[in-house]
């Protein structure tokens, strides 16, 4: 049985939410697997992360070096090539780091690569059966990967429920094994997105408002809800026309095409021009006081309510639950 590893990304001394999702994914490959987490970084932040991860994984390999101070896939890849045993299966979340790391790693390890994995059906001999999506999530597909020489898999965040932190493995400092790494890409800085320059096309959760918001002053209600949910406010065209929100927030054929996971349509009737901007089969919650609003035809969940009353109530409930 191949050994399973999970590379854990982290930020500010806290492991990413996907850390426990990767463990679930690993167990789907082999429920009995002993899964090793790999963390790279530097200093106390790394120690903190290693400590957190150790509560869930059977073992944690820690690599501390200045070159890992910022997660640079061009440095992590040669490290993993060096330290991973032959035939290993490595999991890394399908985020911008995973996209950077995984393809090249699979080549260097001569392993199979399956990216953006949304389901794992199990291992049959050396064939691993997985589920992916194509065409912007419009269709799903089963793929079979030959993992006899190992595999690199990047599960999509949110596709696997987070595992309970049940194990308690040792943290092994393997920094010495890293040795000298040739890195041809040097990190300089992160430029933070400008305030008011939110890219709704890249957001997973959108609180989207339409004409039901009635007045400019009520935008705040939506912003409060979005803040509580960790979401971003988007809107339909009338809101932009009224200049209550900037154009970059508009969902629709004449606005942005978005691919969120969850879409809260508040006071949006659901014209096809608006729905045309909604892709990737999100979970749509429609809140509208008009029970006949077309949005209910396409939504997964519908609530007939006045958004000006419902949204603050929802915000409050979320805040309380925190």
């Amino acid at each position, binding site marked *: 049985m191949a050994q399973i590893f999970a590379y854990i990304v982290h930020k500010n001394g806290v492991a990413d939410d996907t850390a426990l999702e990767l463990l679930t994914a690993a167990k789907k490959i082999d429920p009995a697997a002993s899964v090793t987490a790999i963390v790279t970084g530097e200093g106390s932040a790394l120690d903190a992360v290693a400590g957190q991860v150790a509560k869930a994984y059977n073992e944690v390999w820690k690599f501390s070096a200045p070159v890992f101070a910022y997660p640079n896939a061009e440095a992590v890849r040669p490290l993993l090539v060096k330290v991973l045993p032959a035939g290993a299966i490595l999991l890394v979340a399908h985020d911008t780091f995973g996209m950077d790391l995984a393809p090249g790693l699979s080549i260097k390890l001569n392993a199979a690569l399956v990216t*953006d994995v949304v389901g794992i059906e199990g291992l049959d001999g050396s064939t691993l059966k997985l589920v992916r999506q194509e065409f912007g999530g419009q269709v799903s597909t089963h793929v079979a990967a030959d993992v006899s020489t190992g595999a690199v898999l990047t599960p999509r965040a949110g596709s696997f429920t987070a595992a309970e932190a049940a194990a308690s493995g040792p943290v092994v400092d393997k920094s010495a094994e890293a040795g000298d790494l040739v890195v041809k890409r040097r990190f300089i800085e992160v430029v933070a997105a400008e305030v008011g320059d939110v890219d709704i096309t890249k957001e997973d959760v959108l609180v989207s408002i339409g004409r039901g918001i009635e007045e400019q002053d009520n935008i705040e209600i939506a912003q409060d809800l979005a803040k509580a949910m960790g979401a971003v406010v988007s809107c339909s065209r009338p809101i932009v026309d009224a200049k209550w929100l900037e154009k970059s927030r508009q969902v629709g054929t004449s606005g942005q095409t978005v691919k969120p996971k969850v879409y809260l349509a508040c006071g949006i009737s659901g014209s096809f021009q608006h729905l045309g901007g909604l892709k990737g089969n999100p*979970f749509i919650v429609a809140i509208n006081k008009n029970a006949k609003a077309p949005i209910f035809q396409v939504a997964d969940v519908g609530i007939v309510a006045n958004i000006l009353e419902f949204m603050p109530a929802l915000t409050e409930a979320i805040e309380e639950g925190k």
Partner: protein
Amino acid sequence: MEILVCIKRVPDTSENEIALNSAGNDIERDDLVYSVNEWDNYAVEEAIQIVDRVGGSVTVVTVGDDESEEVLRREMAMGANKGLLLADDAFAETDGRGIATILKAAVAKGTYDLILTGALADDGAGQVGGMLAAMLDYPFASVVNKIETVNDKTLKIGREIEGGNQEISEISLPCVLSIQTGINEPRYVGIRGIRKVASVEIPTLAAGDLGLDAAALAPKVKRLDYFVPALGKGAEMLEGSTEEIIAKLLEMLKAKGGLK
């Protein structure tokens, strides 16, 4: 700067729902129209803009069949200087690794300082660029949304990372970059532009020309089928008191990752 841009001809699915064919082994392709992968189009535009600034030439390459020639011509109408078609029946059944292998063989036949791909294509895998870089031992960066030339050995690049932030790095040439949409505003290619390049010769290389055999292209990953996950019809209407509705909704939002 000599730039190679790897492009793909994909079905244009932006406005039409994808349906499965009756056999369930593929999507229904009869009513689909094809065009160049949107990300690749940004990559070509970027290449053209770089060449406009620092000189050099842009070559567009695709792995496909005779029909793929149309996307090469389209990108040449946009301003790419040369096209290269890699077509062979042996290429049909391969995987991402195989495509990268074919491209690597094509890269070896030329001299390129910079290789661009789209960040992803219709299958959403986003794998070929990184694989090609590893095969060539070139540095790689994905989801690039900014390229500045520092000198003839170094680029300053930006990657679009989570939260809309931009990660700035320096990368040595030659390298492979996968390009994110929004890096530029691709120019329009009209019917007239396409006609202008209609008769330009596009060289075609087959497996033999590239020194590839079936073993080199043997896939490690195979697509077994297509399916559409079951969907409910119409919304599930939540009823009851506001408190009850909110309780139910919160549960659902948590399950779907709608609360952070």
